[in-house]
């Protein structure tokens, strides 16, 4: 058994066999797990916002879908991963509170994060092979570099492996 490395909110990290990466309690944020099927180099980004271009305060590149995924990929390549061997699994992007009124911008952030992540991955030609997104509950995710299995935990629900 390897180590389980924690990735915080607006944070990212990579690992290699036999370690795993986890991020706890994803709400409207999206956990983007990238996995190189050949070298088993693994990355996980905890994305809070769709785009670094919409925000002036964008020094933390891990915070955004676009720059966060780019950076995770760059670190994985440094460890020998190849973009053409990488697949993605994503989770999160929940709408935690069911507001029906006002400022959709603020409240549909989960959905917008998921869209932005998908757009970015498709631009990079990285296929999304599994996802557990949307709805209204929080999720803890773990990506295992040995198998590429993405485990999702939620309160009052069964463990899900995708």
């Amino acid at each position, binding site marked *: 058994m390897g180590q389980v490395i924690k990735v*915080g*909110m*607006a*944070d990212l990290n990579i690992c290699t066999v036999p370690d795993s990466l986890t991020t*706890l*309690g*994803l*709400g*409207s*944020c999206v956990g983007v797990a990238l996995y190189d099927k050949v070298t088993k180099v693994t990355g996980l980004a905890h994305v*809070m*916002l769709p785009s670094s271009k919409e*925000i002036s*305060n964008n*020094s*933390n590149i891990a*915070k955004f879908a676009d720059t966060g995924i780019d950076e995770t990929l760059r670190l994985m390549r440094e460890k020998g991963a190849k973009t053409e061997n990488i697949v993605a699994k994503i989770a999160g992007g*929940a709408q*935690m*509170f*069911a*507001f029906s*009124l*006002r*400022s959709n911008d*603020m409240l549909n*952030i989960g959905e917008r994060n998921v869209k932005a992540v998908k757009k970015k991955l498709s631009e990079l030609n990285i296929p999304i092979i599994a996802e557990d997104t949307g709805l*209204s*509950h*929080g*999720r*803890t995710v773990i990506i295992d570099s040995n198998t590429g299995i993405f485990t999702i*935990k939620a*309160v*009052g629900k069964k463990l899900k492996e995708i």
Partner: protein
Amino acid sequence: MSKIDLNNIDSVHFDVLKEIGNIGAGNATTALSKMLNAKIDMNVPKVDLVGFSEMASIMGSEEDVMAGILLLISGDIDGMMMFLLEVKSARSLVNTLMGTTPDPEKENSPEFDEMEHSALSEIGNIITGAYLSALSDLTRLNISASVPHLQIDMAASILSVPAIEFSKVGDKALLIETQFDDDSNINGYFVLVPDLDSYDTILSSLGL
């Protein structure tokens, strides 16, 4: 240009925000005490600007199940306000309000039935309402709140909602931790998220 930079807040502004937290939480405690018809003491609230990753760990662990009550605020200032309670505290408040005998098996259960759910929303409404009315009196600003929305889930996932709002302007969030202290030891946390312009409005209204 905004007066406030949450990443580099000066001590005067910080003290003002702290005082707002203090008065708001004080008023909320009084409201809670009246509602429950019990004496409730409040510890001096801790006000902190914390990084996103630390936010949930201050309250316990990211995966601890908590009850979060969220209201949108509008009027002279815009933003959101959140009140968080440990599930155990939420259960104990609901029991007190509804006059039910505590069931030890349900003490830490995240399952609340419809009636309990609505009681908890109402508690959140009263507490946050008292908090906001203190803020409104102090600043003479017109502040109105939406109906409360309740969610019971992992702390980090609930906190992601205000954290995302903060993340648009910085990498830290303003957290006001209040510990109510009656026999059952109720712990609660306020997270006030004015949008950036609203910080200016608040500070200007206080002559800063």
